[in-house]
């Protein structure tokens, strides 16, 4: 688990929230250090948006503690919100306001935005700010919210699945922008289920399921917890390899998965039989993700 050696931008522990009989959060923990890009992973209904809404003071937690930028997200909402910008997963705009007006309004309500950066972002995202809210597509509405957030002068960005409506080209622009933010030292909480995005951008990730955190750490740490898959062709067939998983032997060809700490032993074993060819690939985040999700069927939890 992650060791707290820096100041945290977000600290959540044992958070519970239920809506009627639905338990959206069941003791969720989350720690986001200042200056990091933190991936917040989970399937639909895992409780990502509920957590974010609690952090924004829009929902009141039933129990547990949450600290945001050193304050209480419920009590200190208005002062804290000056220091953060939020992009909701489902962006709706006022039908009669133009995109440019929404960007300026939200920026001003937060306490100002950088006009140069605004201009720059509009260009990069290829967004026409003169269109009225009702005429934008889903992706363009998301761009409006992203430009408003990224052009704001804030310490923390909370992004709830911000790329779900963007095309691959714009997703690339989004990644560049987040890299920029990282360089500026801003903290980013990025909720997503696009694994490639998280893998490319995030310093650390938390994986949640049914309202609980099931895994948290750097990608390296998480990879360490999982298995490498190996396919090898051997000079002489072998009977078994101790300490590996899902072993499949097909004549001289073997295929198995091995825990990170046992790779060395397994390779030694293989080399006794004479290795002709060997393909190994490290665990992808997909495997990490699937391992946690396929463990058991959903019991509770609904995304709000």
């Amino acid at each position, binding site marked *: 688990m992650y060791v707290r050696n820096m100041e945290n931008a977000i600290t959540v522990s044992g958070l519970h929230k239920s809506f009627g009989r639905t338990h959206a959060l069941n003791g969720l923990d989350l720690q986001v250090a200042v200056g990091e890009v933190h991936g917040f992973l989970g399937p639909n209904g895992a409780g990502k948006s509920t957590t974010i809404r609690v952090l924004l003071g829009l929902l009141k937690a039933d129990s547990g503690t949450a600290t945001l930028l050193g304050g209480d997200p419920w009590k200190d909402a208005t002062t804290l919100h000056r220091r953060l910008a939020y992009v*909701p997963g489902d962006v709706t705009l006022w039908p009669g306001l133009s995109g440019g007006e929404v960007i300026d309004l939200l920026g001003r309500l937060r306490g100002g935005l950088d006009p140069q950066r605004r201009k720059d972002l509009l260009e990069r995202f290829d967004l026409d700010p003169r269109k009225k809210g009702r005429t934008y597509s889903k992706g363009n509405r998301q761009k409006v919210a992203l430009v408003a957030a990224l052009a704001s002068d804030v310490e923390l960005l909370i992004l709830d699945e911000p790329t779900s409506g963007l095309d691959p080209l714009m997703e690339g622009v989004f990644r560049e922008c987040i890299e920029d933010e990282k360089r500026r030292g801003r903290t980013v909480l990025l909720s997503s289920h696009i694994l490639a995005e998280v893998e490319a951008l995030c310093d650390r990730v938390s994986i949640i399921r049914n309202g609980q955190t099931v895994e948290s750490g750097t990608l390296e740490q998480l990879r360490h917890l999982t298995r490498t898959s190996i396919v090898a062709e051997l000079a002489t067939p072998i009977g078994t390899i101790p300490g590996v998983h899902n072993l499949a032997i097909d004549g001289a060809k073997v295929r198995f998965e091995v825990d990170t700490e046992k790779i060395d032993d397994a390779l030694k074993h293989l080399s006794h039989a004479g290795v002709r060819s060997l393909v190994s690939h490290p665990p992808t985040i997909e495997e990490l993700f699937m391992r946690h999700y396929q463990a058991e069927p959903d019991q509770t939890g609904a995304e709000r």
Partner: protein
Amino acid sequence: MTGAWNLVRLILRRDRILLPIWVLLLGALPGTYATSFFELLPDDAARATFAATTASNPSVEAMLGPIYGSSIGAFTAQRVGFLYAIVGLVNLLTVIRHTRTEEDAGRRELVAATAISRHAPLTAVLAVTFAANLLLGLIAAAGLSKTGLPSSGSLLIGLTLAGTGWVFAAIGALVAQLTEGAGAARGLGIAVLGAAFLVKAAGDGAASSVSWASPLAWGQHSRPYEGDQWWVAALFVIVAAVIAVPAYRMAASRDVGAGMVPARLGPAEAAPRLSTPLALAWRLHRGLLAGWTAGFALAGLLFGGAAKAASDVLSSNKEMADLLAKLSGGSSVTDLYLAEIMGVSAIVAAAYGIQAALRMRAEETGLRMEPVLATSVGRIKWAAAHLVFAVLGPAVALAATGLASGLTYGLAVHDLSGQLPRVLGAAVVQLPAVLVLTGITVALFGLAPKLTSAAWGALAVCLFLGQLGALLQLSQGALDISPFTHVPKLPGGTVTATPLITLTAVAAAFLVVGLYAFRRRDVTTG
């Protein structure tokens, strides 16, 4: 018309609760009117008095419609007057709901991509409303005949109710094509209905044939039970068809999602003023404010102008003028008429107050509140910005109607400086009662957000008590539930401060409770 039948079934499935409710309820009401008149006015003498006094009072004729005789049938036909407007409203909203709202939500696209003809969606909703109105009319006719009224007049009332529904369904279909967006379509449709109501009220109140310009007046001008004019029923069918034709043409020629009036581009940057929650609320409320204020001013001009004519009609009837003066404790007939108009204006202003306060809930469920609350805007500040319009908006609208009616009435009687302040005062004195309804909406928004629209139910109760409470001889205790019962009858009556202060305090208490609860509750989206 491929696919129209399947769309009809879709509409019936979606409206399986709403549709039967309005068809049965509106269909059943005329019969109950007749029944209560038979009980209240058992003999010819009572009927003659009622016809000569209450029924031919210009303010009653303005609100309900003309009276053509002294039979129970004539009274019932007059009382049905209000229903024409309600049938019109229901049809308007139903057609827009199944046309423009569907387009806005993107569901029309889903349907249009299946094997259906271009005309099918409009055909389906018009077919459903056609049948529903016909059924409503037949239920009304059956209910009326059952009370013992002549069946031919009963059928005529039923058919004219249905016909009014058809005309406004066609108007709904037309405005849904003209505008871009369901909100704009509803606004335009309701403006047309409001104008039709005003023309009818102004015309009928002054016994003028001007009211023929309003489809809402045709039903009663067909003189049910008092020389049935059957050709009027045909008029409805012709006019509905004439309105539906351009709606069909536009529906077939325009793009899905577009209006005949295209949306313009907006500014690339916000004006410097657009930087507070209040400035945002102004942008969201200004159209509503302008529309309501204009409507109230127009109504004031018409009713103020008609007040003189109304009292002229009455003063020719010496007997009744004396009776009314006695009943009202010395108030003049015009004062009674104006007081009645202000009472109705207050109910309508309360509808505006509720509508403006409900914008908060619409912003919340539409996910447009969340991004604002995620900035440094506190909840109370956000709500207060909307409440400026929910509180001051009705005040502005009432002042507009007071000024306008004071102006036209003052000019008509050559006493502008004397009448203008009296009539303006009569309008503004309604405000505390109006704000109670705004307060109820805010309290619901804070305490039970999912039930916020129940505020309309509260207004319906007030409307019911005000319009029918006296007729049904309800107890004073029951009538006192409505805040409007406590408003001094102005002009002409006396003003006491206590009820006004109490009403203001009740409104303020509702507001405070609502805001307190809103600050402590979860933001809900469902």
